[in-house]
């Protein structure tokens, strides 16, 4: 068992694991990238296609490997931390020990200062203390011994760094068990009462979902602005909220980068906005179907409020293009429709598979348009905006992990412990100085030489 623990906590094994994790992450990145590329295999860059040959284009397979590596990583981390705590104590004992002359002479960085007059140990103590060292003294068998230590806490940096990953595991688990995201849309004056089923889109129900109906939100006003057509400046909205105790909260402004917290939910301004048209379709038999059609703003060219729909029970695709003076009410798009046109209309073009598109006419607000035995009625048009709701108890733990991660890295790399051992022999006329630093050992040579030289001058004067 001890051998297994030693193997799992060894530096070589953890190095191998990080290397493996790097490989998995790179492959995961390539897969994530492929998701954005063309589904056409031949159009995928050769680098990404090369990986496919080894069967590494399967996200399921990759996830299995990823979780196996991560689990082994967690086990290795546990044994590593145990070993570090044990070794840390032993090292502390070793480093707080005073060194005699022979021991100092064996050190890689050491020097001897010969002096005509013996200095007092207090002079040496003061010299190091002025440079931020903590100095302790002891009487050796035949020499006065001093130990100067600086940034001693730095030796805990690596342990702290490893502990950070436990926080990430914990936060990740909390996220997995509690996280969900829901999406909904509102027009001014409409109200959304939170229930899991009430969201238009949502992630699967987590293991711990908790109570529904945490909030009710009414949209007061959409505050959308553009730099110019096609380039959104800000998405914002004024909303009124009621929490789970039916307490009416003050009217709030919600915008991108400025979410609202209600209970354990956070409500974000989402990116979809535009207009919703209510349309009624009636066929020759008098069967009526009501539906809504979304026209999205903020696409590449804001001029086109364009959408494609397929009428239910037909093979007829309709290209619908909306023109509305409501666009002029949006900041930044006021001058966009320069024509004196008021009201709303939808230009209707139909297309059947393998045939040329046919312009069917214009559907005015409140009006009808008939073709192919169908009658479309344009009931109403309203602007809408969208919101995302998240609940995730892992976030706080993950962010605490971030703080600890940064702290531990700063301690590890910028708060490097330094130690100097000094032995005074021949009544102090020979001073042996040895030093070590836990990191950046080559450049410490220069620092040691400088400091020892300063000490020599200080003692000589």
């Amino acid at each position: 068992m001890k051998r297994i623990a030693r193997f799992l906590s060894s530096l070589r094994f953890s190095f191998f694991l990080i290397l493996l994790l790097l490989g998995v992450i790179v492959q995961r990145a390539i897969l994530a990238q492929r998701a954005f590329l063309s589904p056409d295999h031949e159009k995928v860059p050769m680098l990404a296609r090369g990986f496919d040959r080894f069967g590494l284009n399967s996200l399921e397979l990759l996830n299995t490997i990823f979780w196996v590596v991560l689990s082994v990583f967690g086990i290795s981390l546990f044994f590593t931390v145990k070993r570090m705590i044990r070794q840390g104590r032993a090292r502390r004992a070793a480093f707080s020990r005073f060194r005699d002359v022979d021991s100092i002479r064996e050190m890689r960085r050491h020097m001897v200062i010969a002096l005509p007059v013996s200095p007092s140990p207090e002079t040496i103590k003061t010299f190091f203390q002025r440079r931020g060292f903590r100095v302790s003294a002891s009487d050796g068998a035949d020499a006065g011994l001093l130990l100067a230590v600086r940034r001693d806490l730095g030796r805990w940096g690596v342990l702290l760094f490893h502990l950070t990953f436990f926080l990430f595991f914990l936060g990740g688990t909390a996220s997995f068990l509690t996280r969900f995201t829901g999406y909904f849309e509102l027009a001014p004056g409409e109200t959304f009462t939170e229930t899991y089923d009430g969201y238009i889109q949502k992630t699967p129900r987590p293991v711990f979902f908790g109570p529904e109906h945490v909030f009710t939100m009414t949209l007061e006003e959409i505050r959308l602005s553009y730099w110019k057509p096609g380039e959104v400046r800000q998405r914002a909205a004024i909303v009124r909220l009621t929490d789970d105790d039916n307490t009416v909260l003050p009217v709030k402004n919600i915008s991108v980068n400025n979410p609202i917290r209600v209970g354990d939910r956070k409500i974000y301004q989402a990116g979809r906005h535009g207009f919703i048209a209510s349309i009624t379709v009636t066929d020759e038999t008098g069967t009526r179907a009501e539906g809504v059609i979304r026209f999205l703003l903020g696409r590449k060219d804001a001029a086109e409020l364009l959408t494609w729909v397929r009428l239910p029970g037909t093979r007829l695709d309709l290209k619908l293009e909306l023109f509305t003076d409501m666009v002029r009410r949006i900041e930044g798009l006021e001058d966009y429709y320069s024509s004196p046109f008021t009201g709303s209309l939808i230009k209707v073009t139909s297309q059947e598979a393998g045939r040329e598109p046919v312009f069917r006419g214009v559907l005015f607000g409140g009006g009808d348009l008939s073709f192919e035995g169908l009658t479309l009625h344009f009931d109403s048009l309203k602007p809408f905006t969208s919101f995302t709701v998240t609940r995730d108890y892992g976030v706080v733990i993950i962010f605490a992990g971030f703080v600890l991660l940064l702290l531990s890295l700063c301690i590890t790399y910028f708060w490097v412990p330094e130690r100097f051992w000094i032995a005074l022999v021949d009544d102090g006329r020979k001073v042996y100085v040895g030093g070590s630093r836990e990191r950046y050992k080559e450049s410490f040579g220069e620092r040691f030489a400088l400091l020892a030289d300063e000490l020599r001058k200080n003692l000589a004067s």
Partner: protein
Amino acid sequence: MTFAHYYWLSLALYITAGVFFLAGLVFVKKDAGRAGSVLAATGLLMHTVSLGQRWLQTGHGPYVSTYEILSSNTWIVVLFFLLLQARLPRLRNLGAVVMPLAFLMMGFALVGSTEARTLSPTLLSGWLVVHIIFAKLTVAALIVAVSLSVVYLLRATGREVKKILRYELPRGELLLDYAYRFVAFGFVTMTIMIVTGAIWADTSWGSYWAWRPTETWSLGVWLAYGVFLHGRVTFNWSGRVVSWYVILAFLFSILAFFVLPFLVKGIHSQYMVG
């Protein structure tokens, strides 16, 4: 004069500074090295004016297009190098490697459009500033580490090169120790960059990590440098292994942060490519 004029002026000064640093390295002329520093500092001043003018014109910092990103990256690399050589004058002629890399970046910057772009709502955040500052510090630290590794490799190549590079740069292992320090610094700043990016993503979209391509690639780069720092402790990596690793890891990070945004649509490609 417009920002473009100052840009070209700084580019010319950086090139001249690079020539002077190289002369200092080859002909053992300390004055040439000093002149290189003065020229680089003057170039930096011109570059600052160029960036400032552009900032006033666009109404936002230099981080929304390939031109602005690479230009500001060069600025911070030169500033970082000048501060470094002021503190460690022995590394002054490292400018013979840093300056060519700097003006190479400025050249690439001109490949992109110099047209001013607007900021999308997501980018209107205080987190952007922190994220960008640490991203740029990462680039600066890693470029200095690469330069130190290149000099180490040149010196280790053979006597002929040693004869050419007669200038007294620190001995080999010390160069690598500095490279290690800069990689460690870059690793910490990269961590801050990733962490602030994650917090910002949570503030903007409600998800601190979603395995988007840029996030995943940045984690890959972070791990690549983590492997280096670990390897140095585990296997006492030194010499050419360290130098080549630092260079290759940097090329990997260039691929992840500067090449892939051109291939993959996402938040980073949005502000970089448009």
